[in-house]
């Protein structure tokens, strides 16, 4: 057998073992319901709570059920301060029992950006689904937009964080 195969096999075994160990945990995860509406967000990667095959799908209602926050800030994409309402990303991670350092955010147009999970708690970033009280259509950077409170910290008004502020978010991959 080649080393790669050995490697894959080893890892698969480890993964199986892990899943076996995690199975009760996974099996116990009944807090994560199945989405009823259109899935607008999929969280995969190192997640503890799933409602699919290693993935956690969310629809709008599920997201709205989680703890939400509001951020009113100016942005480079809109004129003047805008009020965003969305789920606190820190809570979202917790709800899926994310076990990783980083989240790779993928947008609908396959734009990808890595975001450290630490940001969510540190800055209170949200995954916004409402702008100025209105849901965002895809044509208006919806349905989900990662928003930092840019005005709260001058550091946030930089490209570093702008690049993390992905709109048209489709998938969060925890790793």
């Amino acid at each position: 057998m080649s080393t790669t195969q050995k490697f894959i096999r080893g890892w698969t075994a480890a993964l199986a073992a892990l899943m076996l160990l995690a199975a009760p945990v996974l099996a116990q995860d009944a807090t994560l319901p199945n989405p009823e509406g259109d899935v607008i967000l999929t969280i995969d990667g190192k997640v503890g709570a799933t409602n699919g095959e290693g993935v956690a799908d969310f629809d709008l209602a599920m997201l709205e059920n989680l703890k939400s926050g509001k951020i009113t800030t100016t942005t480079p994409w809109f004129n003047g301060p805008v009020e965003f309402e969305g789920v606190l990303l820190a809570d979202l991670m917790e709800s899926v029992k994310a076990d990783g350092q980083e989240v790779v955010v993928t947008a609908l147009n396959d734009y990808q950006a890595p975001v450290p999970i630490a940001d969510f708690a540190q800055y209170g970033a949200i995954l916004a689904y409402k702008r100025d009280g209105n849901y965002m259509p895809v044509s208006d950077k919806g349905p989900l937009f990662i928003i930092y409170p840019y005005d709260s910290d001058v550091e946030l008004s930089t490209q570093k964080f702008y690049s993390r502020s992905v709109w048209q978010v489709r998938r969060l991959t925890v790793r």
Partner: protein
Amino acid sequence: MSASAAETSGRRTASRVVQTVLTICIVALAVSALYISVLAFKRQEALSQIFRYNIAFSASQGMNELLRFRQRLAGMLVDPPQATKQDVSLRYQILVSRMDLFQSGEFLGFVTEVPDSREAVEEMASVVRRIGTFIDDIDKPENAQLALELTEPLERKMIALASQSNEYGATAQARDQRELLRLHWIFSILALGLVLSGFIFVAMLRWQHRLQISVQRRLKATNEDLLRTRAELAESAAAARRANEELITQNLLFNTALNNMSHGLCMFDAHQKLIVSNQKMESIYGLSSDQLKPGLSFPDLLDSMVAAGAHDRDEAERISALQSALIRQNRSNTLIQELDDGRTILISHQPMKGGGWVATYEDITERHKAQAQVAYMARHDTLTDLPNRLMMRERLEEILRLSSERALSTAVMCIDLDNFKGINDTLGHPAGDALLREVARRIKATVRETDVVARLGGDEFVVVQGNLDGSDQAVNLVKRLIAVIDEPYLIDGHQVLTGASIGIVATTGGEEADDLLMQADVALYQAKADGRGVYRFYEPDMNKRLQRRRTLETELRAANLDEQFYLVFQPIIDLDANKVTTFEALLRWRHPVHGEVSPDEFIPIAEDTGAIVPLGEWVLRQVCLELKSLPESICIAANLSPMQFKRDDIVETVARVLVETDTPAHRLELEITETLLLEDNRKLHVDLKRLRKLGSRISLDDFGTGYSSLSYLQRFAFDKVKIDRLFIKDIAKSADQAAIVQTIVNLAFTLGMTTVVEGVETEEQLRIIRAMGCDEAQGHLFSKPIPSDAIVGYLAEHERKRTAA
């Protein structure tokens, strides 16, 4: 000195420059720092600008989304369809979103700037909008196809947009870079400037440090200087202290000296204000120390003197005027000030340099008095307080002048006390002085106020009478004077008698005072010669007499007694026995030039000059020699002058002569004149006793003419009393005279004394005195004095007569 001063100022300027430069540096640094921070901030902003929304990425994303849309469209058209309507719709939505982004925010800025891109975006947006009209029906192949066609040119446009945006971005980036570079340059320059400033700063600091070191060195030197100076100062302070102490001591000494001066002192400044005064001023003028405070003005000083009662206002004004004149004229002088209490103050005014003056005040009252006293004493006789010769002379001249002006007479009298010397010798000088004082008092009491009484010394007095009408007044005065002086004196319990001889001259003027005095003196001389106790007016020929007297004096002194003198003898007859008992020896002088000089003339001279002593001795000797050639029963009587008693031990002389001549003493009779007895002299008493003891007999001659009191007869045991011729002169006519003679005779008889009457010239006189009981007689009736060689003849003659009768 100037070099270092320049150095110092140079250094000072340098340090100031340094300070300014440093300040500028600091300011520059601060400003730079500020600016740099601002720049940094700006840089930061710029940087952040660079990292802001990436337009190129957005454009490329848009390109990607367009392609995915077209791909989905194409996939939908393919059989079997590769994509769903939802996929296409989704892609379309994403595209719409992208279009929105293209038309807002930063992208819009870019789009606006670059016209080509604007056009592209507009075109794209219109296409998208158009597609939006049928997007719901996009599953219809014709719509999909249309969409594909519409979007086909967009690809190229999107690429162009992307590249434009890229270029834009690059340009912006380049611009930003340039900006950054600029900032960097500025920053670098500033940093460099900062560094330079730093260096300069350091250099300045070093220089400053050097300066400071040099300053420090200088300071050190200065410090040393200061220390030295301090030491010097301490020394000078000590010296100053010493000097000050000295000054204090000196001041003290000065003060002591000032206040112990015997004179008062006042020093005034040019403004007539008092600067210095001493305590003596207070005592002189009765001022208090408050009144003599410095600053007192000169007029105020005089006022306070007046207020203190030292002198009255008039005197103050007089002094003020005099002293003010001196002050004005800047002269020194002395002023005499009379104080009300009789004191005299000598003010010595001395101007000082600078306008002030110093005046000393000396109480010269005593000196004045002393001077006055001296002046007085120079003019007065100390004993009697009468004017002396000097003053008398002045007064005399004055009186002469005044009297002659009024055509009146002036009389000058020279008064001489008779036998003053005798009194002085017997009673002593104190008694003599007392006598003189009393005489002076009596004379003064007798003369008028305006007359001058002076004592010329010894027992000589002068009286000057002026304003006389004639000489009668003078004569009256003279008589009165003689009488007054004649009065007895009580001196030390003794009764003293003296008389005065007065020579007087009167003049109506035109004569010199000295001449008058001399004439009065001559007249006095005459008075004395004339027997004393008398006055004589000057007669012109008195001078001659004086001259003669002077000559005789000289002659007498020089005379060879044997050659020029001889004796004559007058017999004394015993009236009972009618026998010659004694011869009185009388001295005669035959001068080779002057001829016979009367004993009345030369005897007084001899007595005065003392020539009487050798003369007397010579007489005694001659008498003794003569006795040898005479019968044993005959005695010779020699006159003894009082002078002989005074000037010589007469007893010893007599004894010696008797022994030398081998003469029995009883043959010698000694006649003492009555005036001798005026001297109440123990010595005289003793001498007479001794003479009698020798064996000689003593006769009292000229009895009754003098002042002899009867007690003398008892006290001094005489053998004979010779009654003066005066008493028998008019005995025939005057009962009084007769009575007197009788009394004397009886008295003498009672006392056991022989009486001899002198000057018997007439028979009648003889008869009377014989009847009275006189023992002996002498006179011209019997014989005048005869020379010795005629004695024998006379005796024989007398004997013949006697026996014949």
